[in-house]
């Protein structure tokens, strides 16, 4: 869509965009280009110039078992937490949309978790899921040693998944509810007149009509699970135990700023960028075609 009526002094028009362009050049394109450059060279952290090494950084990363472990952990985390957060939110939104008495309460409250900073909720969950105090301690009391996120990798992964899903249930809920409410009431009523029950209407009318939202949330949840997980991992597990929760962004941070391996971190950033861009393209190209639009 374009405007029919515009202003003629276009030189002034460009001036309006200059602040934004300066910002994205300095803080977006330059760093992104820099990341590509670093990933192809070997940078000494204390100066002394860069040596061109071609794809060596990528080769050494991709042959590193720790890195593959980090990718696997990220994918497990993304898969389970996305599935969990979306499923719970879908059920709650569908039920809230039935507009029984008191549904305003759920509309208000279920959104709250999304406002909370990831590290803050991580600390809360670290306490709630702590093996020696809090609530999982009760479980350990009856079956000693069953739950210990500090020693058992699977338990640690479960903890960060719970914390992340808790936050994103609220987020997904907002979008699902908006999508359900956009469905014309007359459609539902017509189906009811034809004798279909609540569950049948959900499967045959509501669910197909909200597929664009489902698919949109799928991509957002996966990309967010790569980024927003940093605070949760840093506070709850610090990547441990034994790298079980060393997700990709956390590894970039610890390699780059703690290990001072700028070139390795840059190469990892590039791989993560490619992954996210690929996801975005998949979003537009493949899944969107099979989605039902009105």
């Amino acid at each position, binding site marked *: 869509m374009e*405007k*029919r009526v*515009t202003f003629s002094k276009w030189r*002034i*028009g460009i001036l*309006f*965009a200059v*602040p*934004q*362009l300066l*910002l*994205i*050049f*300095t*803080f*977006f*394109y*330059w*760093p992104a280009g820099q*990341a590509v450059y*670093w990933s192809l060279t070997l940078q000494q952290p204390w100066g002394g110039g860069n040596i061109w090494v071609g794809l060596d950084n990528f080769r050494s990363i991709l042959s590193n078992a720790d890195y593959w472990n980090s990718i696997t952990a990220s994918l497990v985390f993304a898969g389970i937490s996305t599935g969990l957060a979306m499923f*719970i939110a879908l*059920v709650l939104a569908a039920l*809230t949309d*039935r*507009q*029984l008495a008191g*549904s305003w309460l*759920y509309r208000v*409250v*279920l959104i*709250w978790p999304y*406002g*909370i*900073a*990831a590290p*803050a909720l991580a*600390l*809360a969950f*670290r*306490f*709630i899921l*702590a093996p020696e105090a809090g*609530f999982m*301690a009760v479980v350990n009391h009856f079956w000693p040693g069953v739950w210990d996120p500090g020693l058992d990798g699977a338990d640690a992964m479960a903890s960060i998944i719970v914390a992340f899903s808790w936050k994103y249930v*609220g987020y997904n809920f*907002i*979008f699902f509810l*908006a999508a359900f409410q956009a469905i014309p009431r007359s459609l*539902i009523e017509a189906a009811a007149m034809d004798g279909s029950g609540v569950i049948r209407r959900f499967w045959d009318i509501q669910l197909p009509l909200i597929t664009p939202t489902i698919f949109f949330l799928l991509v957002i949840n996966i*990309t967010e699970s790569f980024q927003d997980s*940093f605070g949760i991992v*840093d506070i709850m597990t610090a990547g441990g135990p034994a790298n079980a929760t060393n997700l990709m*962004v956390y590894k*970039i*941070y610890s390699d780059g*700023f703690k290990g001072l391996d700028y070139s390795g*971190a840059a190469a990892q*950033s590039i791989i993560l960028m490619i992954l*996210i861009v690929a996801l975005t393209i998949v979003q537009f190209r493949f899944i969107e075609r099979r989605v039902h639009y009105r």
Partner: protein
Amino acid sequence: MVERTPILNFFTHLILFAGFVFCVAPFVIVAIAASHNLKDVNDVPMSLLPGSDFWVNIKTAWTTADLGPKLLNSFIMAFGVAAGKVIISALTAFSIVYFRYPGRMLMFWLIFITLMLPLEVRIVPTYAVVANVLEPYQAILDLTGISWLIQKISGVQVQLSLGLLNSYSGLILPLVATATGTFLYRQFFLTVPDELTEAARMDGAGAMRFFVDILLPLSRNNMAALGTIMFLWAWNQYLWPLLITTDQSHAMAVTELKQLIPNVGGAPEWHIAMAGTLIIMLPPLVVVVLMQRWFVRGLIATEK
């Protein structure tokens, strides 16, 4: 509610109530844990009746993590980011929608691409840029030979350097540098009737006048929505402030959380940790509760 379904209604209420508990329980547990003393908070199971030490713990957490100045810093940064986004996005969208100039589409795509790569994935090089923001320009001068030219002519060696580590601008500017709000405004500007623009032009209003007196007042709702969402987003930032504020006087509230984690081997002071968590959770929660309408609207409009 089209028909009577008593059994299904019962289960609907049941499941929704379970969801309600799932969402609220962590807040309640944090608040209760913050009211216990050291012994009670480590009881198994912890008593769900509030203890009596709430204010003592809040005070201890406040002084231990020095939260006063940290919260102030968080506010400054979150307001800065929100204001920056609201203003800069409006300007850019105005330029893209209301003017025709060469390279406009290229610019549109340059801005659009920034949506794809969040700060977290390009964190290392962005850090280097913030350490010296003029580095890109220095490099351009070097590459184009301008700095060589200047040195030849005036004998002055060009050495641009401006570090923004440990400063508010260093915290704020990189977070403003994405297109999140631009497309919100663009969508809205496209719905503003052309007749309005024509009428304004006929009355002799220039671009600037039209923007300030007509377009901005019309976008008040969008500004509130974008401002709310960006405030929360900036308040909740963690990785970026953690990196660039090494100096305590610029530390944020959220990055202070790490100091509250009970040490292994030390006393498990979960009551203090939870009191601190509660303080840090509260401002965004208040914003969500009070600004719910704008928050929901902003969320749906910025992402779609």
